[in-house]
């Protein structure tokens, strides 16, 4: 049993196709259709991941990476206006991202926990793509000419993260929000985006970015931890909002989330979690894009049991009859 790290997507796929390896994880998404076609030689196993990919933003009065079209700082932070946030969500064509970038391996969503998980809301649908409506909303919010923004993100953490960021930049620019892209390796990115946590690294109480792409996997199977981490206000002593790097705060969401945490009755807790999610996400605390679909590709003659937590274990692979 040999584990061979091959970081280059293309090389990894080539190794499988040449028979040098038996199974690979994260086959490059552009090649999924072709792999599926060659069903005599290869099998693609897939499973929807618990990891949601989303856009998060920061709500300070002055944002370093949000500027007017002339390059000057704006009197108010447009990201604080829920209409602007909604416009940003409507401008994203999630289906196009799924089809053209992810090779079909994505589940566009408006939720932060995957379907079937405890806390998933049927009422929350992914925002439909509507560029005209987005422009309308921007106009209503007082930004008929749009504004400028820099979108940050990691380039080696999530599936096609770099490409998704570039695509979102493209889509936002089309509705008037001129977007620049800056990506970096994950350790640098997460250090910089987390720096807003004043208590772990004092002196750095200013988060570096204004708008960024990130991901969250609900490993616990239920939404309590997710809602607390992403939607509740940042409060290190209480231990809440540890992934709320944009410092979104909504008193109603906080109240409901806190109540949910102490509610033992499952049904009641479920309702509370759904409620908290719906309030926060309708307010666009963050903009979910999709759930990743994890793929593995292996040669025919094997059988692989895919895992929701994205791990690859040797014992998940067996010989097919």
């Amino acid at each position, binding site marked *: 049993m040999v584990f061979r790290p091959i970081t*280059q*997507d*293309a090389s990894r*796929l*080539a190794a499988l*196709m040449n028979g040098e390896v038996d199974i690979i994880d994260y086959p*490059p998404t*552009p*090649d999924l*259709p*072709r792999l599926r076609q060659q069903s005599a030689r290869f099998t693609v196993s897939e499973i929807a991941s618990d990891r949601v990919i989303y856009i998060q933003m920061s709500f300070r009065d002055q944002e370093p990476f949000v500027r007017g079209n002339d390059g000057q700082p704006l009197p108010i932070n447009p990201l604080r206006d829920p209409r602007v946030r909604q416009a940003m969500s409507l401008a994203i*064509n999630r289906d*196009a*991202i799924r089809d*053209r*970038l992810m090779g079909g391996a994505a589940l566009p969503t408006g939720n932060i926990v995957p379907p079937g998980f405890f806390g998933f809301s049927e009422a929350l649908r992914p925002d439909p793509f509507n560029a005209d409506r987005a422009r309308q909303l921007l106009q209503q919010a007082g930004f008929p000419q749009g504004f400028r923004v820099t979108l940050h993100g990691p380039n080696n953490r999530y599936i096609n993260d*770099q*490409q998704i960021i*570039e*695509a979102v*930049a*493209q*889509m936002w*620019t*089309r509705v008037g929000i*001129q*977007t*620049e*892209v*800056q*990506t970096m390796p994950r350790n640098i990115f997460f250090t910089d985006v987390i720096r807003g946590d004043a208590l772990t690294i004092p002196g750095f109480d200013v988060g570096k970015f204004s708008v960024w792409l990130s991901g969250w996997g609900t490993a616990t199977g239920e939404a309590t931890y997710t809602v607390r981490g992403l939607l509740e206000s940042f409060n290190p002593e209480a231990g809440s909002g540890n992934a709320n790097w944009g410092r979104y705060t909504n008193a109603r969401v906080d109240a409901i989330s806190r109540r949910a945490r102490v509610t033992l009755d499952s049904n009641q807790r479920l309702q509370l979690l759904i409620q908290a999610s719906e309030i926060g996400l309708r307010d666009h605390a963050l903009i979910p894009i999709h759930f990743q679909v994890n793929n593995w590709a292996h040669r025919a003659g094997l059988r692989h049991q895919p895992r929701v937590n994205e791990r690859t274990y040797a014992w998940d692979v067996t010989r097919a009859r």
Partner: protein
Amino acid sequence: MSGTEGRWRALAQEFARARGAVAALLVLGLILFVAAAAPLISPQDPYDLRQLDIMDNLQPPGSRAFSGMLFMLGTDGQGRDILSAIFYGLRTSLLVGVLSGTLALLLGSVVGLVAAQAGGALDSLIMRIVDLQLGLPPILVALVLLVVLGNGADKIIVALVIVQWAFFARTVRGVALVENARDYMEAARSLRLPRLRILFTHLLPNCMPTLLVVGTVQVASAISLEATLSFLGLGLPATEPSLGLLIANGFRYMMSGNWWVSVFPGLALLATIMSINVIGDRLRDVLNPRLRH
């Protein structure tokens, strides 16, 4: 100055006798024109995100966009027209290559001249530094510099200048030493002509041929090095891709049969570098008849 004019004309005629070199000159001329006129002749502005549509991504050469525009060389993963991206990418490559080459030439020439004129301990010290610099592999120097300086077009130019200046310094110093010993320099000095005047009217023109040859080769390798750095991810931003980055991005699509994303930018890069090298070769042959075969 008619003597010099006549000399240049004779050189040009000699140059034109090799058909390969003339062809290279034409190719380079075309590339320069394309790069300069890129905003006017490109079907699309590949740096303007408004003009890109992800629905058009990975279209093969010859296909059309939803809007009807023809993608002569296909599109990349973001829907960028490859032909336009090549035009703009050539622009960046040539700018970076020529600018860094020119700056390195200026810097290196000054250092070389100073070393030759000063002589003695200063000359020794400078040449030690030049030797040290020349012994270091360019790619490593550039990598470390970019790690320290960060990304961006200006940082790359700085890195390339630092990589190249030593070649010019050594060349100019060599020529200057030879020329300094010549009779006419002796004569000029005995006439008490001002040093700078001697430099500009006598020394520099004699350095020109060698500088020209070294310069062309340097520009070619600067362009190649910039593309390599971009390929490794240490270059210009992702939304203004240079040729190296285009090729790097294209790699991931190559396996699924979308070969055009990597192949065409590479051919453009190859044509540029090769034409410059052929011209440089011919210049060397013409200007140093002793070495010609």
